[in-house]
Protein backbone atom coordinates (compact mmCIF):
# COMPACT_ATOMS: atom_id res chain seq x y z
CA UNK A 1 0.00 0.00 0.00
CA UNK A 2 1.21 3.46 -0.85
CA UNK A 3 1.66 5.81 2.08
CA UNK A 4 -0.90 8.60 2.18
CA UNK A 5 0.06 11.97 0.82
CA UNK A 6 0.34 14.62 3.56
CA UNK A 7 -2.88 16.34 2.44
CA UNK A 8 -4.87 13.15 2.54
CA UNK A 9 -3.29 12.19 5.85
CA UNK A 10 -4.30 15.47 7.41
CA UNK A 11 -7.79 15.13 5.97
CA UNK A 12 -8.04 11.65 7.39
CA UNK A 13 -6.90 13.00 10.71
CA UNK A 14 -9.52 15.74 10.64
CA UNK A 15 -12.35 13.43 9.73
CA UNK A 16 -11.21 10.76 12.21
CA UNK A 17 -10.69 8.12 9.60
CA UNK A 18 -8.19 5.56 10.81
CA UNK A 19 -5.46 5.48 8.21
CA UNK A 20 -4.59 1.86 8.68
CA UNK A 21 -8.07 0.72 7.65
CA UNK A 22 -8.83 3.04 4.80
CA UNK A 23 -7.21 2.13 1.58
CA UNK A 24 -5.33 4.94 0.02
CA UNK A 25 -7.11 6.51 -2.87
CA UNK A 26 -6.00 4.69 -5.98
CA UNK A 27 -4.46 6.61 -8.78
CA UNK A 28 -6.70 7.77 -11.55
CA UNK A 29 -5.28 5.51 -14.20
CA UNK A 30 -5.67 2.51 -11.93
CA UNK A 31 -9.36 3.25 -11.44
CA UNK A 32 -9.81 3.82 -15.11
CA UNK A 33 -8.27 0.49 -15.91
CA UNK A 34 -10.37 -1.26 -13.33
CA UNK A 35 -13.59 0.32 -14.41
CA UNK A 36 -12.83 -0.28 -18.02
CA UNK A 37 -11.75 -3.86 -17.55
CA UNK A 38 -14.45 -5.07 -15.22
CA UNK A 39 -17.42 -2.76 -14.87
CA UNK A 40 -19.37 -5.06 -12.59
CA UNK A 41 -16.56 -5.35 -10.05
CA UNK A 42 -15.55 -1.70 -10.15
CA UNK A 43 -15.88 0.39 -7.02
CA UNK A 44 -19.00 2.20 -8.16
CA UNK A 45 -21.06 -0.74 -9.23
CA UNK A 46 -19.92 -2.96 -6.42
CA UNK A 47 -23.27 -2.40 -4.73
CA UNK A 48 -24.93 -4.36 -7.49
CA UNK A 49 -22.62 -7.22 -6.92
CA UNK A 50 -23.10 -7.22 -3.18
CA UNK A 51 -26.84 -7.34 -3.47
CA UNK A 52 -26.73 -10.28 -5.81
CA UNK A 53 -29.47 -12.68 -4.77
CA UNK A 54 -30.18 -16.18 -6.01
CA UNK A 55 -32.87 -14.70 -8.27
CA UNK A 56 -30.84 -12.02 -9.85
CA UNK A 57 -32.46 -8.94 -11.27
CA UNK A 58 -29.39 -8.06 -13.28
CA UNK A 59 -30.32 -7.94 -16.89
CA UNK A 60 -28.67 -10.15 -19.37
CA UNK A 61 -26.67 -7.41 -21.01
CA UNK A 62 -25.02 -6.52 -17.71
CA UNK A 63 -24.39 -10.14 -16.87
CA UNK A 64 -22.53 -10.88 -20.06
CA UNK A 65 -18.80 -10.68 -19.79
CA UNK A 66 -17.36 -7.38 -20.96
CA UNK A 67 -20.72 -6.25 -22.22
CA UNK A 68 -23.29 -3.95 -20.79
CA UNK A 69 -23.55 -0.21 -20.95
CA UNK A 70 -20.44 1.17 -19.34
CA UNK A 71 -21.52 4.78 -19.25
CA UNK A 72 -19.35 7.82 -19.54
CA UNK A 73 -16.01 7.27 -17.89
CA UNK A 74 -15.77 10.89 -16.76
CA UNK A 75 -19.06 10.56 -14.93
CA UNK A 76 -17.86 7.39 -13.28
CA UNK A 77 -14.75 9.13 -12.08
CA UNK A 78 -16.61 12.17 -10.83
CA UNK A 79 -19.00 9.99 -8.93
CA UNK A 80 -16.17 7.95 -7.49
CA UNK A 81 -14.27 10.91 -6.13
CA UNK A 82 -17.40 12.78 -5.05
CA UNK A 83 -18.59 9.96 -2.86
CA UNK A 84 -15.22 8.80 -1.65
CA UNK A 85 -15.04 8.84 2.16
CA UNK A 86 -11.98 11.06 2.07
CA UNK A 87 -13.80 13.77 0.18
CA UNK A 88 -14.87 16.41 2.66
CA UNK A 89 -18.58 16.91 3.04
CA UNK A 90 -20.20 19.83 1.25
CA UNK A 91 -20.40 23.12 3.06
CA UNK A 92 -23.80 23.47 4.70
CA UNK A 93 -24.86 26.70 6.35
CA UNK A 94 -27.86 27.63 8.40
CA UNK A 95 -30.08 30.41 7.14
CA UNK A 96 -28.55 33.22 9.15
CA UNK A 97 -25.08 31.91 8.67
CA UNK A 98 -25.59 31.82 4.94
CA UNK A 99 -26.90 35.36 5.05
CA UNK A 100 -23.88 36.48 7.02
CA UNK A 101 -21.64 34.74 4.54
CA UNK A 102 -23.47 36.44 1.70
CA UNK A 103 -23.10 39.83 3.40
CA UNK A 104 -19.38 39.39 3.80
CA UNK A 105 -19.05 38.17 0.24
CA UNK A 106 -20.95 41.14 -1.13
CA UNK A 107 -18.91 43.55 0.94
CA UNK A 108 -15.70 41.99 -0.35
CA UNK A 109 -16.86 42.23 -3.94
CA UNK A 110 -17.87 45.83 -3.40
CA UNK A 111 -14.55 46.67 -1.83
CA UNK A 112 -12.67 45.13 -4.72
CA UNK A 113 -14.80 46.98 -7.22
CA UNK A 114 -14.12 50.25 -5.45
CA UNK A 115 -10.40 49.56 -5.49
CA UNK A 116 -10.44 48.72 -9.18
CA UNK A 117 -12.30 51.92 -9.88
CA UNK A 118 -9.82 53.97 -7.89
CA UNK A 119 -6.90 52.45 -9.77
CA UNK A 120 -8.60 53.09 -13.06
CA UNK A 121 -9.24 56.71 -12.17
CA UNK A 122 -5.66 57.16 -11.04
CA UNK A 123 -4.36 55.80 -14.33
CA UNK A 124 -6.72 58.07 -16.20
CA UNK A 125 -5.53 61.06 -14.21
CA UNK A 126 -1.89 60.25 -14.92
CA UNK A 127 -2.51 59.80 -18.60
CA UNK A 128 -4.40 63.06 -18.85
CA UNK A 129 -1.70 65.01 -17.02
CA UNK A 130 0.89 63.57 -19.40
CA UNK A 131 -1.29 64.55 -22.30
CA UNK A 132 -1.67 68.11 -21.02
CA UNK A 133 2.08 68.37 -20.45
CA UNK A 134 2.70 67.35 -24.04
CA UNK A 135 0.16 69.86 -25.21
CA UNK A 136 1.87 72.54 -23.17
CA UNK A 137 5.18 71.57 -24.72
CA UNK A 138 3.69 71.77 -28.18
CA UNK A 139 2.01 75.13 -27.84
CA UNK A 140 3.64 76.96 -24.94
CA UNK A 141 7.36 76.37 -25.48
CA UNK A 142 7.60 79.14 -28.05
CA UNK A 143 9.63 77.17 -30.58
CA UNK A 144 6.77 76.39 -32.90
CA UNK A 145 6.45 72.92 -31.45
CA UNK A 146 9.89 71.78 -32.54
CA UNK A 147 10.80 70.32 -29.18
CA UNK A 148 7.55 68.44 -29.08
CA UNK A 149 8.07 66.99 -32.54
CA UNK A 150 11.61 65.96 -31.68
CA UNK A 151 10.39 64.24 -28.54
CA UNK A 152 7.72 62.38 -30.41
CA UNK A 153 10.13 60.79 -32.87
CA UNK A 154 10.16 57.16 -31.96
CA UNK A 155 12.62 55.65 -34.39
CA UNK A 156 14.81 53.16 -32.68
CA UNK A 157 12.89 53.20 -29.45
CA UNK A 158 13.14 49.76 -27.89
CA UNK A 159 14.93 48.56 -31.01
CA UNK A 160 18.62 49.19 -30.54
CA UNK A 161 18.69 49.76 -26.78
CA UNK A 162 16.24 49.11 -23.98
CA UNK A 163 15.94 51.83 -21.33
CA UNK A 164 18.02 51.05 -18.29
CA UNK A 165 15.01 50.92 -15.97
CA UNK A 166 13.63 47.99 -17.92
CA UNK A 167 16.86 46.09 -17.30
CA UNK A 168 15.33 44.46 -14.27
CA UNK A 169 11.86 43.30 -13.39
CA UNK A 170 9.62 46.22 -12.47
CA UNK A 171 8.44 46.12 -8.87
CA UNK A 172 5.92 48.07 -6.83
CA UNK A 173 8.46 49.30 -4.28
CA UNK A 174 12.24 49.67 -4.18
CA UNK A 175 14.37 46.87 -2.83
CA UNK A 176 15.13 46.67 0.88
CA UNK A 177 18.81 47.27 0.40
CA UNK A 178 19.15 49.79 -2.35
CA UNK A 179 22.34 48.69 -4.00
CA UNK A 180 24.39 45.63 -3.60
CA UNK A 181 27.83 47.15 -3.32
CA UNK A 182 29.53 43.81 -2.84
CA UNK A 183 28.41 42.52 -6.16
CA UNK A 184 31.19 41.54 -8.52
CA UNK A 185 30.83 40.22 -11.92
CA UNK A 186 31.36 36.50 -11.85
CA UNK A 187 34.66 35.77 -13.47
CA UNK A 188 34.71 33.93 -16.70
CA UNK A 189 36.60 30.72 -16.82
Amino acid at each position, binding site marked *: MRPLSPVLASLANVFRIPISQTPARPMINRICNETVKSPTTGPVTSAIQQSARPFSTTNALLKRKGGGPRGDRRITLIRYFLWHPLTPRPLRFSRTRYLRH*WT*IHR*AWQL*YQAQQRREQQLELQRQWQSMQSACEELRTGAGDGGKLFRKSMIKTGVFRDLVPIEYGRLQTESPAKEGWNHEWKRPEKR
Partner: protein
Amino acid sequence: MAHCERASKPLLQCLQRTCTKGLPSLQVQSARTFQTTALAREEAQTEAKTQSFYKSPDPSLVSSPRLERRMLRQGISPIGSRRRRAALQDSANIPFEQLPYQCFQEARKVLLGDREEKLKQISTMSEKISRLEAVPTEEAGGEQAKKSKLRAMELHLDHLKILADSNDPLVKKKFEDGQGDMSKPIYRFLADRKWREYRRKILVQRITQMNVVPDVLPHCEPVVDTKLYFGRNAIQLGEFVNASASAMVPKLDIQLFDRDEKLVTIAVVDPDVPNVEKDGFDYKMHYLAVNVPISATSTKVDLSKLSTESQEILPWLPPVAQKGSPYHRLSLFILEQKDSKPLDFAAVKAKETDRDNTLLRTLQARYHLKPIGAHLFRTKWDETTEEVMRQIGFPEADMELRRKRVEPLPYKRRNPSTFR
Protein backbone atom coordinates in the same frame (compact mmCIF):
# COMPACT_ATOMS: atom_id res chain seq x y z
CA MET B 1 1.05 31.32 31.43
CA ALA B 2 0.09 31.40 27.83
CA HIS B 3 -2.82 29.10 28.50
CA CYS B 4 -3.97 31.26 31.36
CA GLU B 5 -3.94 34.30 29.15
CA ARG B 6 -5.79 32.60 26.39
CA ALA B 7 -8.43 31.32 28.76
CA SER B 8 -9.03 34.63 30.45
CA LYS B 9 -9.04 36.64 27.22
CA PRO B 10 -12.76 36.51 26.49
CA LEU B 11 -13.57 37.32 30.08
CA LEU B 12 -11.29 40.35 30.01
CA GLN B 13 -12.69 41.49 26.69
CA CYS B 14 -16.18 41.12 27.99
CA LEU B 15 -15.44 43.07 31.13
CA GLN B 16 -13.66 45.80 29.21
CA ARG B 17 -16.49 46.20 26.81
CA THR B 18 -19.19 46.32 29.43
CA CYS B 19 -17.17 48.80 31.45
CA THR B 20 -16.19 51.15 28.66
CA LYS B 21 -19.31 51.16 26.58
CA GLY B 22 -22.59 51.20 28.36
CA LEU B 23 -24.72 50.96 25.23
CA PRO B 24 -27.49 48.38 25.51
CA SER B 25 -26.89 46.92 22.06
CA LEU B 26 -23.25 46.31 22.84
CA GLN B 27 -24.18 44.63 26.06
CA VAL B 28 -26.32 42.29 24.06
CA GLN B 29 -23.30 41.61 21.88
CA SER B 30 -21.15 40.78 24.82
CA ALA B 31 -23.84 38.46 26.06
CA ARG B 32 -23.16 36.34 23.04
CA THR B 33 -19.42 36.19 23.51
CA PHE B 34 -19.43 35.17 27.10
CA GLN B 35 -21.92 33.48 29.33
CA THR B 36 -22.39 36.21 31.89
CA THR B 37 -25.99 36.85 30.98
CA ALA B 38 -27.00 33.22 30.94
CA LEU B 39 -28.27 33.54 34.48
CA ALA B 40 -30.36 36.57 33.72
CA ARG B 41 -31.81 34.93 30.65
CA GLU B 42 -32.72 31.82 32.58
CA GLU B 43 -34.39 33.93 35.18
CA ALA B 44 -36.44 35.69 32.58
CA GLN B 45 -37.39 32.40 31.00
CA THR B 46 -38.43 30.76 34.23
CA GLU B 47 -40.48 33.79 35.09
CA ALA B 48 -42.21 33.75 31.74
CA LYS B 49 -42.76 30.03 31.95
CA THR B 50 -44.21 30.01 35.42
CA GLN B 51 -46.44 32.88 34.58
CA SER B 52 -47.74 32.32 31.13
CA PHE B 53 -45.82 29.98 28.86
CA TYR B 54 -47.84 26.89 29.67
CA LYS B 55 -51.08 28.76 29.50
CA SER B 56 -50.40 30.61 26.26
CA PRO B 57 -47.35 29.04 24.63
CA ASP B 58 -45.52 30.91 21.90
CA PRO B 59 -45.93 29.11 18.54
CA SER B 60 -42.37 29.88 17.58
CA LEU B 61 -40.90 28.52 20.82
CA VAL B 62 -43.05 25.61 21.94
CA SER B 63 -41.20 22.31 21.80
CA SER B 64 -42.91 19.76 24.02
CA PRO B 65 -45.33 17.50 22.13
CA ARG B 66 -48.06 17.94 24.71
CA LEU B 67 -48.09 21.71 24.37
CA GLU B 68 -47.89 21.42 20.60
CA ARG B 69 -50.95 19.20 20.56
CA ARG B 70 -52.79 21.67 22.74
CA MET B 71 -51.90 24.51 20.41
CA LEU B 72 -52.97 22.51 17.39
CA ARG B 73 -56.31 21.87 19.06
CA GLN B 74 -56.64 25.60 19.52
CA GLY B 75 -55.99 26.00 15.84
CA ILE B 76 -52.51 27.55 16.00
CA SER B 77 -49.82 25.56 14.24
CA PRO B 78 -46.31 25.83 15.66
CA ILE B 79 -43.73 27.56 13.47
CA GLY B 80 -40.75 25.69 12.07
CA SER B 81 -39.38 22.35 13.19
CA ARG B 82 -39.41 21.19 16.78
CA ARG B 83 -35.64 21.11 16.71
CA ARG B 84 -35.54 24.72 15.61
CA ARG B 85 -38.03 25.79 18.22
CA ALA B 86 -36.09 24.03 20.94
CA ALA B 87 -32.93 25.74 19.78
CA LEU B 88 -34.65 29.11 19.77
CA GLN B 89 -35.81 28.65 23.36
CA ASP B 90 -32.40 29.19 24.88
CA SER B 91 -30.92 31.62 22.40
CA ALA B 92 -30.44 35.25 23.07
CA ASN B 93 -32.67 36.78 20.46
CA ILE B 94 -30.15 39.13 18.96
CA PRO B 95 -31.38 40.90 15.85
CA PHE B 96 -29.61 39.80 12.71
CA GLU B 97 -27.74 43.02 12.09
CA GLN B 98 -26.30 43.07 15.61
CA LEU B 99 -24.86 39.56 15.53
CA PRO B 100 -21.44 39.85 17.16
CA TYR B 101 -19.17 38.55 14.42
CA GLN B 102 -16.31 40.83 13.66
CA CYS B 103 -16.01 40.17 9.95
CA PHE B 104 -19.75 40.43 9.53
CA GLN B 105 -19.86 43.76 11.32
CA GLU B 106 -16.98 45.10 9.24
CA ALA B 107 -18.74 43.96 6.10
CA ARG B 108 -21.89 45.71 7.23
CA LYS B 109 -19.92 48.89 7.75
CA VAL B 110 -18.61 48.71 4.19
CA LEU B 111 -22.06 48.05 2.79
CA LEU B 112 -23.66 50.84 4.82
CA GLY B 113 -21.01 53.28 3.65
CA ASP B 114 -21.72 52.31 0.06
CA ARG B 115 -25.44 52.73 0.67
CA GLU B 116 -24.89 56.24 2.05
CA GLU B 117 -22.95 57.10 -1.06
CA LYS B 118 -25.69 55.73 -3.29
CA LEU B 119 -28.33 57.71 -1.41
CA LYS B 120 -26.33 60.84 -1.95
CA GLN B 121 -26.09 60.07 -5.65
CA ILE B 122 -29.83 59.46 -5.78
CA SER B 123 -30.59 62.83 -4.23
CA THR B 124 -28.22 64.65 -6.57
CA MET B 125 -29.67 62.81 -9.54
CA SER B 126 -33.24 63.67 -8.64
CA GLU B 127 -32.20 67.28 -8.14
CA LYS B 128 -30.61 67.25 -11.59
CA ILE B 129 -33.78 65.84 -13.08
CA SER B 130 -35.96 68.47 -11.49
CA ARG B 131 -33.56 71.17 -12.64
CA LEU B 132 -33.65 69.89 -16.21
CA GLU B 133 -37.43 69.73 -16.11
CA ALA B 134 -37.55 73.37 -15.02
CA VAL B 135 -35.37 74.46 -17.96
CA PRO B 136 -37.47 75.56 -20.96
CA THR B 137 -37.29 73.34 -24.02
CA GLU B 138 -35.45 75.84 -26.24
CA GLU B 139 -32.52 76.18 -23.85
CA ALA B 140 -32.26 72.43 -23.32
CA GLY B 141 -31.62 71.93 -27.02
CA GLY B 142 -34.93 70.91 -28.50
CA GLU B 143 -37.71 68.66 -27.39
CA GLN B 144 -36.13 65.43 -28.56
CA ALA B 145 -32.82 66.07 -26.81
CA LYS B 146 -34.51 67.08 -23.59
CA LYS B 147 -36.75 64.05 -23.62
CA SER B 148 -33.96 61.59 -24.27
CA LYS B 149 -31.81 63.22 -21.62
CA LEU B 150 -34.61 63.02 -19.08
CA ARG B 151 -35.28 59.41 -19.96
CA ALA B 152 -31.63 58.45 -19.55
CA MET B 153 -31.46 60.23 -16.22
CA GLU B 154 -34.59 58.51 -14.96
CA LEU B 155 -33.22 55.13 -15.98
CA HIS B 156 -30.03 55.90 -14.13
CA LEU B 157 -32.03 56.95 -11.09
CA ASP B 158 -33.94 53.64 -11.09
CA HIS B 159 -30.68 51.77 -11.40
CA LEU B 160 -29.25 53.69 -8.46
CA LYS B 161 -32.30 52.91 -6.36
CA ILE B 162 -31.79 49.21 -6.98
CA LEU B 163 -28.07 49.45 -6.28
CA ALA B 164 -28.70 51.19 -2.98
CA ASP B 165 -30.70 48.29 -1.59
CA SER B 166 -29.33 45.28 -3.40
CA ASN B 167 -26.61 44.58 -0.86
CA ASP B 168 -28.88 44.49 2.16
CA PRO B 169 -29.09 40.99 3.66
CA LEU B 170 -32.44 41.74 5.26
CA VAL B 171 -33.88 42.68 1.88
CA LYS B 172 -32.64 39.39 0.53
CA LYS B 173 -34.13 37.51 3.45
CA LYS B 174 -37.49 39.22 3.12
CA PHE B 175 -37.61 38.52 -0.57
CA GLU B 176 -36.77 34.88 -0.06
CA ASP B 177 -39.54 34.62 2.51
CA GLY B 178 -41.95 36.10 -0.02
CA GLN B 179 -42.66 39.13 2.16
CA GLY B 180 -41.18 41.67 -0.21
CA ASP B 181 -43.11 44.88 -0.67
CA MET B 182 -43.77 45.09 -4.39
CA SER B 183 -44.19 48.85 -4.28
CA LYS B 184 -40.43 49.14 -3.73
CA PRO B 185 -38.14 48.97 -6.74
CA ILE B 186 -35.66 46.51 -5.24
CA TYR B 187 -38.27 43.82 -4.59
CA ARG B 188 -39.71 44.32 -8.05
CA PHE B 189 -36.25 43.96 -9.52
CA LEU B 190 -35.56 40.77 -7.56
CA ALA B 191 -38.93 39.28 -8.47
CA ASP B 192 -38.40 40.09 -12.11
CA ARG B 193 -34.98 38.47 -12.10
CA LYS B 194 -36.31 35.37 -10.43
CA TRP B 195 -39.17 35.14 -12.90
CA ARG B 196 -36.85 35.52 -15.85
CA GLU B 197 -34.55 32.83 -14.54
CA TYR B 198 -37.07 30.04 -14.81
CA ARG B 199 -40.75 30.72 -15.22
CA ARG B 200 -40.47 33.05 -18.16
CA LYS B 201 -38.23 30.64 -20.01
CA ILE B 202 -40.80 27.88 -19.52
CA LEU B 203 -43.57 30.18 -20.70
CA VAL B 204 -41.76 31.20 -23.85
CA GLN B 205 -40.83 27.62 -24.59
CA ARG B 206 -44.38 26.33 -24.16
CA ILE B 207 -46.06 28.99 -26.25
CA THR B 208 -43.56 28.61 -29.05
CA GLN B 209 -43.41 24.81 -29.01
CA MET B 210 -47.17 24.52 -29.05
CA ASN B 211 -47.25 27.13 -31.82
CA VAL B 212 -49.53 29.46 -29.97
CA VAL B 213 -47.40 32.38 -30.90
CA PRO B 214 -47.62 32.26 -34.64
CA ASP B 215 -51.14 30.78 -34.54
CA VAL B 216 -52.93 33.27 -32.32
CA LEU B 217 -50.63 36.28 -32.30
CA PRO B 218 -47.54 36.93 -34.41
CA HIS B 219 -45.26 37.92 -31.54
CA CYS B 220 -45.32 37.92 -27.79
CA GLU B 221 -42.58 39.18 -25.49
CA PRO B 222 -43.95 38.45 -22.03
CA VAL B 223 -43.05 40.98 -19.35
CA VAL B 224 -45.62 40.12 -16.69
CA ASP B 225 -45.79 36.95 -14.66
CA THR B 226 -49.16 35.27 -15.10
CA LYS B 227 -50.63 32.48 -13.03
CA LEU B 228 -53.96 30.83 -13.72
CA TYR B 229 -56.20 29.18 -11.16
CA PHE B 230 -59.38 27.16 -11.54
CA GLY B 231 -60.85 27.28 -8.08
CA ARG B 232 -57.79 26.83 -5.90
CA ASN B 233 -55.73 24.77 -8.31
CA ALA B 234 -52.88 26.51 -10.03
CA ILE B 235 -52.64 25.36 -13.64
CA GLN B 236 -49.22 24.59 -15.01
CA LEU B 237 -48.44 25.95 -18.44
CA GLY B 238 -49.97 23.70 -21.08
CA GLU B 239 -51.56 21.33 -18.58
CA PHE B 240 -54.60 19.29 -19.59
CA VAL B 241 -57.57 20.58 -17.61
CA ASN B 242 -60.73 18.60 -16.97
CA ALA B 243 -63.82 20.00 -18.63
CA SER B 244 -65.65 20.16 -15.32
CA ALA B 245 -62.77 22.07 -13.74
CA SER B 246 -62.52 24.57 -16.56
CA ALA B 247 -66.29 25.09 -16.51
CA MET B 248 -65.81 27.52 -13.66
CA VAL B 249 -64.40 30.92 -14.36
CA PRO B 250 -60.63 31.11 -13.82
CA LYS B 251 -58.77 33.49 -11.55
CA LEU B 252 -55.60 35.21 -12.58
CA ASP B 253 -52.59 36.40 -10.71
CA ILE B 254 -50.83 38.94 -12.90
CA GLN B 255 -47.59 40.19 -11.41
CA LEU B 256 -46.41 43.39 -12.99
CA PHE B 257 -42.79 44.39 -12.49
CA ASP B 258 -43.20 48.05 -13.42
CA ARG B 259 -43.99 50.90 -11.13
CA ASP B 260 -46.97 52.36 -12.92
CA GLU B 261 -50.47 51.00 -13.16
CA LYS B 262 -51.65 49.55 -16.44
CA LEU B 263 -54.95 48.94 -18.13
CA VAL B 264 -55.02 45.63 -19.93
CA THR B 265 -57.25 43.58 -22.14
CA ILE B 266 -57.59 39.91 -21.28
CA ALA B 267 -58.50 37.45 -24.01
CA VAL B 268 -58.80 33.67 -24.05
CA VAL B 269 -58.61 32.18 -27.52
CA ASP B 270 -59.01 28.62 -28.70
CA PRO B 271 -57.36 28.21 -32.13
CA ASP B 272 -58.31 24.51 -32.46
CA VAL B 273 -62.05 24.32 -33.08
CA PRO B 274 -62.48 21.64 -35.74
CA ASN B 275 -64.37 22.66 -38.83
CA VAL B 276 -65.56 19.63 -40.79
CA GLU B 277 -66.73 21.44 -43.92
CA LYS B 278 -63.49 23.30 -44.31
CA ASP B 279 -61.42 20.29 -43.19
CA GLY B 280 -59.53 22.65 -40.95
CA PHE B 281 -59.63 24.55 -37.69
CA ASP B 282 -61.38 27.70 -36.55
CA TYR B 283 -60.76 30.21 -33.80
CA LYS B 284 -63.06 30.80 -30.90
CA MET B 285 -62.94 33.60 -28.37
CA HIS B 286 -63.75 32.15 -24.97
CA TYR B 287 -63.37 35.28 -22.95
CA LEU B 288 -62.76 38.93 -23.56
CA ALA B 289 -62.49 41.77 -21.07
CA VAL B 290 -61.08 45.26 -21.48
CA ASN B 291 -59.95 48.02 -19.12
CA VAL B 292 -58.70 45.70 -16.39
CA PRO B 293 -56.42 47.67 -14.07
CA ILE B 294 -53.31 45.86 -12.83
CA SER B 295 -50.35 47.12 -10.88
CA ALA B 296 -47.36 45.70 -9.07
CA THR B 297 -49.22 45.51 -5.76
CA SER B 298 -52.73 44.54 -6.84
CA THR B 299 -52.17 41.37 -8.79
CA LYS B 300 -55.30 39.28 -8.36
CA VAL B 301 -57.84 39.39 -11.14
CA ASP B 302 -60.95 37.26 -10.75
CA LEU B 303 -62.46 36.94 -14.19
CA SER B 304 -65.91 36.22 -12.75
CA LYS B 305 -65.90 39.41 -10.71
CA LEU B 306 -65.11 41.86 -13.47
CA SER B 307 -68.00 44.22 -13.97
CA THR B 308 -70.28 43.44 -16.89
CA GLU B 309 -71.04 47.14 -17.41
CA SER B 310 -67.55 48.40 -17.96
CA GLN B 311 -65.10 45.52 -18.40
CA GLU B 312 -66.42 42.13 -19.45
CA ILE B 313 -67.30 41.96 -23.14
CA LEU B 314 -67.65 38.23 -23.77
CA PRO B 315 -68.31 36.19 -20.61
CA TRP B 316 -66.50 32.94 -19.89
CA LEU B 317 -67.50 30.09 -22.16
CA PRO B 318 -66.36 26.73 -20.78
CA PRO B 319 -63.98 25.09 -23.25
CA VAL B 320 -65.02 21.66 -24.50
CA ALA B 321 -63.37 19.37 -26.99
CA GLN B 322 -65.50 17.09 -29.10
CA LYS B 323 -64.80 13.40 -28.90
CA GLY B 324 -62.16 12.44 -31.42
CA SER B 325 -60.91 15.95 -32.02
CA PRO B 326 -57.28 16.73 -31.26
CA TYR B 327 -56.58 18.61 -28.06
CA HIS B 328 -57.55 22.25 -27.88
CA ARG B 329 -55.01 24.85 -26.85
CA LEU B 330 -56.67 27.50 -24.73
CA SER B 331 -54.33 30.44 -24.85
CA LEU B 332 -54.77 33.40 -22.58
CA PHE B 333 -53.23 36.70 -23.54
CA ILE B 334 -52.74 39.83 -21.49
CA LEU B 335 -52.61 42.79 -23.85
CA GLU B 336 -51.58 46.23 -22.78
CA GLN B 337 -53.78 49.07 -24.00
CA LYS B 338 -52.00 51.94 -25.62
CA ASP B 339 -50.79 54.57 -23.12
CA SER B 340 -52.94 52.84 -20.47
CA LYS B 341 -55.97 54.67 -21.76
CA PRO B 342 -59.35 53.04 -21.28
CA LEU B 343 -61.12 51.75 -24.38
CA ASP B 344 -64.66 52.83 -25.10
CA PHE B 345 -66.54 49.92 -23.55
CA ALA B 346 -69.89 50.47 -25.29
CA ALA B 347 -68.31 50.67 -28.74
CA VAL B 348 -66.20 47.57 -28.18
CA LYS B 349 -69.18 45.70 -26.77
CA ALA B 350 -71.31 46.64 -29.76
CA LYS B 351 -68.62 45.58 -32.21
CA GLU B 352 -67.25 42.38 -30.71
CA THR B 353 -70.25 40.13 -30.29
CA ASP B 354 -69.26 37.20 -32.44
CA ARG B 355 -67.16 34.63 -30.64
CA ASP B 356 -66.30 32.65 -33.75
CA ASN B 357 -65.15 35.27 -36.17
CA THR B 358 -63.11 37.52 -33.89
CA LEU B 359 -59.43 37.03 -34.42
CA LEU B 360 -57.08 38.30 -31.78
CA ARG B 361 -54.84 39.70 -34.50
CA THR B 362 -57.72 41.85 -35.71
CA LEU B 363 -58.42 43.07 -32.21
CA GLN B 364 -54.78 43.84 -31.68
CA ALA B 365 -54.63 45.96 -34.79
CA ARG B 366 -57.99 47.60 -34.21
CA TYR B 367 -57.39 48.73 -30.63
CA HIS B 368 -53.56 49.11 -30.70
CA LEU B 369 -52.94 46.41 -28.13
CA LYS B 370 -49.56 45.02 -27.21
CA PRO B 371 -49.20 41.53 -25.73
CA ILE B 372 -47.35 41.61 -22.40
CA GLY B 373 -48.25 38.28 -20.91
CA ALA B 374 -49.57 34.85 -21.82
CA HIS B 375 -50.76 31.63 -20.33
CA LEU B 376 -51.81 28.34 -21.83
CA PHE B 377 -53.80 25.25 -20.93
CA ARG B 378 -55.16 22.42 -22.97
CA THR B 379 -58.38 20.49 -22.96
CA LYS B 380 -59.45 17.27 -24.62
CA TRP B 381 -62.39 14.90 -24.46
CA ASP B 382 -62.80 13.35 -21.03
CA GLU B 383 -65.63 11.80 -19.07
CA THR B 384 -66.93 15.11 -17.74
CA THR B 385 -67.03 16.86 -21.11
CA GLU B 386 -70.46 15.52 -22.06
CA GLU B 387 -72.12 16.98 -18.99
CA VAL B 388 -70.45 20.35 -19.51
CA MET B 389 -71.59 20.29 -23.14
CA ARG B 390 -75.16 19.66 -22.03
CA GLN B 391 -74.97 22.51 -19.56
CA ILE B 392 -73.75 25.05 -22.07
CA GLY B 393 -75.99 23.71 -24.83
CA PHE B 394 -73.23 22.61 -27.19
CA PRO B 395 -74.93 21.81 -30.51
CA GLU B 396 -73.22 18.54 -31.51
CA ALA B 397 -72.71 17.03 -28.09
CA ASP B 398 -73.29 13.44 -29.13
CA MET B 399 -71.16 13.55 -32.25
CA GLU B 400 -67.79 11.89 -32.47
CA LEU B 401 -65.19 12.95 -34.97
CA ARG B 402 -63.45 10.17 -36.87
CA ARG B 403 -60.45 10.28 -39.08
CA LYS B 404 -61.22 9.63 -42.71
CA ARG B 405 -60.23 6.13 -43.70
CA VAL B 406 -57.46 6.21 -46.22
CA GLU B 407 -58.23 3.75 -49.03
CA PRO B 408 -55.28 1.44 -49.64
CA LEU B 409 -53.76 1.60 -53.07
CA PRO B 410 -54.78 -1.17 -55.46
CA TYR B 411 -52.57 -4.22 -55.51
CA LYS B 412 -49.76 -4.03 -57.94
CA ARG B 413 -47.55 -6.90 -58.86
CA ARG B 414 -44.05 -6.18 -57.73
CA ASN B 415 -42.22 -7.98 -60.44
CA PRO B 416 -44.10 -7.45 -63.66
CA SER B 417 -42.88 -8.77 -66.94
CA THR B 418 -41.85 -5.28 -68.05
CA PHE B 419 -39.13 -5.23 -65.37
CA ARG B 420 -37.47 -8.29 -66.68
